[in-house]
């Protein structure tokens, strides 16, 4: 490896470009390989696709790590690769890795065609990575759509299942509708600045707002175009971030989708959407063309309040987590609103913790789903903790992390973004967010209550008396993969709560390269 490194500096521009997309390319390559497994009946039936996907993601992570520290721009500025991307690539790849890990049981359980499944997950991952890395509006649009189409397909993947199809349908109609706004917004941005490249737009706007002191006259006329363009563009992204009132797809799609995909949507797509929004925010929104923080403020407050309130009475675990993810989006947005290096770093850190707690929670949900639970109604969790002690403990911890209780990453993340917002003077926002976390704790706790504190009325599970044969971690038909996923999530959730400094450093490194653009 060491020998190759110096040589890179001598590469020509195409080679540099290729270098900048190696992680994505690796994932796509493996996606194709996995897909081609379908040609061979025998291989296709085996677990090869599962392992190949994992290997592919691992390779990609390896490449990301190898490339880290480099500042690359490829394809005439279409994509960039810098510290920001390193962080988010790893986040996305980890989320994909976890998704693949938790998928195996589920696929076997539901008898889904799996090489395609893994392949599309890999394509989705690559789309997300492109989305994060993209540096012009065309790239943003096309990779966003790429990601969306992958997720539509995955959402409706359980064929013959009305819920799955319905979820896909709703997701697709709404997603396309939102995309239309996004493109239409791009038209106006384009009309206002005449560039599609984000850096160019940034430079252009910066010259206007800072270069000429009496910027108002030049901005006038263009200002409205830019405003409407950015607002409509934001709608498209807010949809992916599932911010209220663009959240409507979230509960239904999360509910109907295969659970690993729900996990994937909740982690990967959300991270990618936030990442690209953060990049565009820093490059464009943050230049004081108009004050976007007002509207983001409102969106953040509405999202967390709606998400939390709606989740309170949710009877279905997946749905509950879906509402919770809306609320979490609100919290994450606080970091962006808070702004500054501190705020961006906080946002990234929060995103990172968010992966593990959400993916972990969904992994546990999958375990429950695969075992003896009739439906994901919370009632059915009654007393399950005594049957699956380790899994339930992990679930409890993920819930606590989502609720923002200390010793978990969720707390540190919340603390980070909240203090960033306070630092920028958004006192009320933080206050509302904290009140929100207070009553949000109720529904997270509700799950723990059901798992650990069964009452006689709603228990159809025989766990209460404590069959108590399962002391260990692995129980019955739960595969090692999913347990591994839970352990990974548990480890990261805890370590990020106990000693977050390493991750903060990582986020700082990432945020630094974001802000330096």
């Amino acid at each position: 490896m060491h020998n190759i490194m110096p040589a890179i500096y001598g590469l020509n521009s195409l080679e540099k470009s290729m270098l900048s997309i190696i992680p994505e390319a690796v994932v796509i390559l493996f996606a194709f390989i996995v897909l081609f497994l379908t040609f061979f009946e025998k291989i296709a039936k085996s677990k090869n696709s599962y392992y190949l996907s994992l290997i592919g993601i691992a390779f990609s992570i390896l490449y990301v790590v190898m490339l880290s520290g480099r500042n690359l721009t490829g394809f005439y500025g279409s994509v960039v690769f810098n510290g920001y991307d390193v962080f988010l690539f790893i986040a996305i790849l980890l989320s994909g890795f976890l998704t693949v890990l938790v998928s195996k049981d589920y696929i076997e359980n539901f008898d889904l065609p799996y090489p395609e499944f893994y392949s599309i997950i890999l394509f989705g991952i690559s789309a997300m990575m492109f989305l994060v890395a993209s540096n012009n509006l065309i790239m943003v649009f096309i990779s966003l759509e790429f990601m969306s189409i992958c997720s539509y397909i995955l959402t409706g993947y359980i064929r013959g299942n009305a819920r799955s199809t319905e979820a896909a349908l709703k997701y697709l109609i709404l997603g396309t509708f939102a995309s239309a706004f996004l493109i239409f917004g791009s038209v106006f941005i384009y009309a206002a600045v005449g560039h599609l490249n984000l850096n160019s737009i940034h430079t252009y706007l910066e010259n206007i707002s800072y270069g000429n002191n009496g910027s108002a006259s030049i901005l006038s006329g263009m200002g409205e175009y830019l405003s409407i363009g950015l607002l409509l563009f934001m709608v498209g992204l807010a949809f992916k971030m599932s911010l209220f009132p663009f959240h409507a797809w979230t509960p239904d799609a999360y509910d109907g989708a295969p659970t690993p995909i729900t996990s994937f949507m909740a982690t990967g797509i959300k991270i990618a959407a936030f990442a690209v929004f953060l990049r565009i925010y820093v490059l464009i929104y943050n230049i004081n063309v108009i004050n976007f923080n007002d509207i983001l403020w409102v969106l953040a407050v509405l999202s967390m309040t709606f998400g939390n309130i709606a989740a309170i009475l949710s009877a279905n675990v997946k749905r509950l987590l879906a509402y919770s993810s809306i609320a979490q989006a609100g919290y994450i947005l606080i970091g962006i609103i808070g702004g500054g290096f501190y705020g961006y770093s906080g946002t990234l850190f929060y995103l990172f913790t968010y992966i593990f707690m959400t993916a972990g929670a969904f992994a546990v949900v999958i375990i429950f789903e695969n075992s003896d639970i009739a439906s994901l109604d919370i009632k059915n969790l009654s007393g399950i903790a005594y049957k699956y002690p380790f899994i339930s403990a992990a679930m409890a911890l993920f819930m606590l992390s989502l609720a923002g209780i200390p010793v978990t990453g969720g707390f540190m993340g919340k603390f980070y973004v909240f203090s960033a917002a306070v630092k920028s003077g958004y006192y009320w926002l933080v206050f509302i967010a904290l009140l929100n976390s207070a009553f949000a704790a109720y529904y997270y706790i509700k799950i723990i209550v059901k798992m650990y504190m069964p009452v006689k009325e709603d228990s159809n599970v025989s766990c209460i008396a404590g069959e108590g044969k399962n002391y260990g971690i692995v129980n019955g038909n739960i595969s090692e993969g999913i347990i591994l996923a839970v352990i990974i999530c548990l480890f990261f959730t805890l370590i990020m709560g106990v000693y977050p400094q390493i991750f903060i450093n990582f986020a700082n490194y990432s945020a630094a390269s974001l802000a330096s653009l």
Partner: protein
Amino acid sequence: MNNYLIVAGIIFCIGALGVLMRKNLIIVFMSLELMFNAANLGFVAVSNRLNLISGDIFVIFVMVVAAAEAAVALGIIVAFYREKGTVDMDKANELKN
């Protein structure tokens, strides 16, 4: 010049109106196509006005995406029709609350 954008806006809004008030999934899908096309028109017009090409390139990608989306969307609609026997979007009501 502005006229093109106005027309684009009108078509966009008609598309949105179609999505808002029709329940037939096929027509909703076509309305979405209308919205995409409105955006395309805007891009071409702006790019013409600014003597640029990148807007036109964008249009090509929008078309590609529209095609891809059409494939997936119609697939989903067909699947939906198989299950419900209708293309009425109100019948997609299993997932709620």
